[in-house]
């Protein structure tokens, strides 16, 4: 364990003193503050003279304002944090000749990769917690509403899901840094994966849905076919961790949302119930709705790290 501690300590020092961390953090802090400010001002205006609805505080995170909501921003930009923190973690040591030195010290070999991953996760957690705290503080000052206990719990769960989500991307980038010798190659590969999941998976979903359930003149009016088409599209898009994350956090952070499915995909009774019972879900119900998403997200994070671990442990030290 001593080995891991020494490595985590060094890696954390490296992260926090690196330019890339400072730039990332400054960027995220800036965007979060601007977004919160805009959303907060808008809320304040709309709320004046009106009885305050419940869960106003969470609207700071979910209202889109003129640009995008904070939750959307993290979903889109979060992967980049993980990727930037990890894309050169192993191959930089290899090209600098420090990896074989590290491996010849009296530590278990997995301490190297565990330490790298752990320090990345800690960095991500510190980043997200501080941003969330700053946003909360600014929100308090702006709209003058104190968050309730349930709102705080929702924020904490949101935070945990977000950390796992970004840790997944960290795992991907560490895997690439093990597989690819060149630092530039692994940087490009991680970017490619990110772009693929952010932009192309929805296109891919449409293509697959068109291929499996073609919509044409004859059956476009047939609700059965349209439904099937949409279902296929949704299943494909759920391959993307981004989609999983979006669905999970949307339900957690917005108690009025009751399902991750779009209105078209709901059954008739479900539609009826959501229309009749407009009350927000309580916390456990919200968690219940997205527990499959959360478990899948955690599972892919663990699998991703597991693959990196195995590949790293099997690599010939000679090639280090």
């Amino acid at each position: 364990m001593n080995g891991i501690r020494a490595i985590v300590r060094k890696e954390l020092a490296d992260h926090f003193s690196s330019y890339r961390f400072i730039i990332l953090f400054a960027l995220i802090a800036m965007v979060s503050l601007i977004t919160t400010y805009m959303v907060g001002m808008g809320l304040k205006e709309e709320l004046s003279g009106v009885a305050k609805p419940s869960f106003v505080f969470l609207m700071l995170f979910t209202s889109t304002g003129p640009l995008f909501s904070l939750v959307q921003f993290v979903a889109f930009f979060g992967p980049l944090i993980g990727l930037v923190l990890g894309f050169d973690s192993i191959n930089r040591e290899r090209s600098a000749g420090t990896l074989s030195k590290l491996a010849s010290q009296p530590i278990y070999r997995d301490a190297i990769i565990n330490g790298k991953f752990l320090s990345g996760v800690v960095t991500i957690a510190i980043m997200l917690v501080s941003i969330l705290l700053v946003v909360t503080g600014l929100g308090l000052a702006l709209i003058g509403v104190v968050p309730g206990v349930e709102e705080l719990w929702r924020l904490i769960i949101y935070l945990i899901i977000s950390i796992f989500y970004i840790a997944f991307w960290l795992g991907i980038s560490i895997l690439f840094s093990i597989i690819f010798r060149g630092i530039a190659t692994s940087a490009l590969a991680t970017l490619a994966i990110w772009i693929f999941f952010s932009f192309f998976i929805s296109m891919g979903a449409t293509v697959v849905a068109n291929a499996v359930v073609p919509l044409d003149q004859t059956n476009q009016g047939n609700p059965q076919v349209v439904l099937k088409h949409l279902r296929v599209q949704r299943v494909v898009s759920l391959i993307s961790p981004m989609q999983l994350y979006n669905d999970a956090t949307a339900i957690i952070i917005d108690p009025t949302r009751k399902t991750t499915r779009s209105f078209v995909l709901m059954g008739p009774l479900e539609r009826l119930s959501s229309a009749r019972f407009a009350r927000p879900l309580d916390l456990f119900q919200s968690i219940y709705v997205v527990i499959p998403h959360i478990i899948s997200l955690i599972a892919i994070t663990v699998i991703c790290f597991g693959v990196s671990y195995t590949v790293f442990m099997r690599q010939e030290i000679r090639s280090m």
Partner: protein
Amino acid sequence: MDQQPVIETQNLTKRYGTTTAVDNLTFSIAQGEIFGFLGPNGSGKTTTLLMLLGLTEATSGTATVAGFNPTKEAIKVKRIVGYIPENIGFYEDMNGVENLRFIARLNHIPDTASTAKIDEALERVGLKDDATKKVAAFSRGMRQRLAIAEILIKEPKIAFLDEPTLGLDPEGTTLIIDYIKALSREHNITILLSSHDLQQVQRIADRIGIMLHGKMIAEGPLEKLAHEKLGVEDKEISLDDVYMKYFQEVTS
């Protein structure tokens, strides 16, 4: 030097696919010895070192380092063996002290104990004035001296030095070789030194081993090798001549 062997191998073999990097290697090194490990590039020296250190698994045969099996008890071996790999790397944006501190922590030396040790080691290798400079600004010679300082921090029983004088000017080479000699004489560290600098090896090595194509083609004190190959007894023998003679014989 008639002590029990601290490093022993029996028919140690390593194959990568169809190529045999190390071929049935059997040799031993006694406690406190400086063993000069010679041979052309690609003759299997580094592979042998990696196997002795437990970083690479042997295809067949056995190795014992201070009574431990490097494959099964890798951590125990790494605790008592200091290793300077060929082209050793340092963390460029950390200074000398920080690099050494990190090594100390990996070796479970608490910071309270390592501070004095680091000072002492840097003083010993003449890097005290540059201790707070980033390693990125270090010359090649300074890096090699920092590597020696790493060994001093770790205080191993055995040190594997893979080409520690590669690419150094003559003055730097002499300096490093003197430090290596001091490691052996002052700290009683058994040293396995791989190098191409035959004159320097001749200066400090107690015994010589010459490797070619994964086999040890000659082993013993220089006088013995010279006697066998050149038939000379006088004190003016040079390792260069002996080395060349062996190669001419094998290649012809």
